[in-house]
């Protein structure tokens, strides 16, 4: 997601700032605030549903927020579970926004009515990203079990009405991949800022349901062709973004170039990256500077490098992504 685009006033090759270890702290934090979710999506990466017994307390959460501000983390994405189910969601958001941290919320949209949409607008969220996995209620609700397509679409409308930068994220599966183009058209008609998609990742419940959900190569070929066409069609009008690589290509790249970001899960453990099971730090034990140091060291551990290469050769190991292994980092 994050890349170096331009080196202002510096034209030499490989200047400082090109690799993650050049930074004093992460540039981005993906924060899974809670595991509780009102839906039971067949493709959920986090296998969300019920709260973890050891999730961070309100006090621990606010302490982490203070560290985010102290270290000038520019950008935080709050997800879950369903983050709007967390009682502290707006307290956290208000605190971080007050200190100019750019915020994105990733939600299923079910709890967004006009009033909630206005709260997002007032807080000046960078964006609210809503999962819309289909253009028809039956497709959507088959995949997002317990979901309500109409409520989700209404949530997007309320957000747009309130002036919130709204994004739709779409995960292609065998059930819904043929609706991609139609959904992008609907997205545009609703006045949404951006449409985001990419290949489904073989992790979490998606891994368990892989044979039922995974589109064929031919379906993916058509999918990317549709995306290319739609990107051209809406150029300058709406952002149509798709990540062209699959999770294995991502891992190959990250093994050489880890991102300047960390992933915090609801119990305060810090994962190295979503598709791998490794925990490199714990917010209950480590301050953010120490977390960042441990993250950098962890990518160099033989255990991590060997397992990552094994995963690349045998994607079925991605099933392990939510069976966390704590790394021994000095």
């Amino acid at each position, binding site marked *: 997601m994050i890349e170096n685009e*331009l080196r202002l*006033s510096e034209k030499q090759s490989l200047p*400082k700032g090109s690799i993650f270890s050049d930074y*004093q702290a992460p540039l981005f934090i993906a924060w899974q605030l809670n595991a509780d979710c009102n839906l039971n999506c067949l493709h959920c990466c986090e296998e969300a549903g019920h709260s973890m017994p050891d999730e961070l307390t309100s006090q621990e959460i606010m302490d982490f927020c203070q560290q985010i501000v102290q270290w000038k983390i520019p950008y935080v994405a709050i997800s879950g579970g369903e983050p709007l189910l967390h009682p502290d969601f707006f307290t956290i958001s208000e605190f971080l926004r007050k200190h100019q941290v750019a915020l994105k919320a990733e939600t299923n949209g079910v709890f967004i009515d006009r009033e909630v949409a206005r709260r997002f607008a007032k807080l000046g969220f960078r964006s609210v990203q809503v999962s819309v996995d289909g253009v028809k209620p039956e497709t959507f609700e088959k995949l997002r079990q317990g979901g309500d397509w109409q409520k989700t679409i209404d949530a997007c409308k309320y957000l747009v009405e309130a002036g919130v930068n709204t994004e739709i994220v779409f995960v292609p599966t065998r059930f819904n991949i043929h609706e991609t183009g139609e959904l992008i058209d609907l997205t545009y008609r609703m006045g949404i800022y951006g449409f985001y998609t990419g290949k489904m990742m073989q992790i979490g419940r998606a891994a368990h349901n892989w044979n039922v959900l995974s589109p064929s190569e031919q379906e993916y070929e058509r999918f990317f062709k549709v995306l290319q066409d739609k990107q051209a069609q809406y150029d300058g009008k709406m952002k149509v973004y798709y990540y062209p690589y699959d999770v294995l290509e991502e891992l190959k790249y990250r093994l050489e170039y880890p991102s300047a970001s960390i992933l915090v899960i609801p119990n305060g453990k810090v994962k190295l990256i979503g598709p791998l099971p490794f925990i490199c730090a714990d917010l209950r034990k480590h301050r953010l500077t120490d977390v960042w140091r441990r993250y950098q060291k962890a990518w160099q551990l033989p255990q991590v490098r060997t397992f990552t290469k094994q995963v690349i050769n045998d994607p079925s190991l991605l099933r392990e992504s939510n069976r966390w292994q704590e790394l021994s980092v000095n």
Partner: protein
Amino acid sequence: MRFAEHTRVRQEKFGAVVFETLKEKVFVTNEIGAKILRLLEQHQTPEEITTQLVSEYDDSPDLIKKDVQEFITDLINQSLLKKDDR
């Protein structure tokens, strides 16, 4: 001049990082760029920034002026910095 709504600047040991959080693009710059960014944060004008840098560096004033202008133009072209309306 002011930074755009979605621009975040952080000073680093190597200089500074500028994060355009809406487009999710990251830019980096060296120590002199970082100095210019700090002065922009303090709402200094390009002329004031040039004067400040001329007093600190041995390069010719014309070269420094040109560098400051180019740097600020880069920031504006990337929608990271906005000219004030007034």
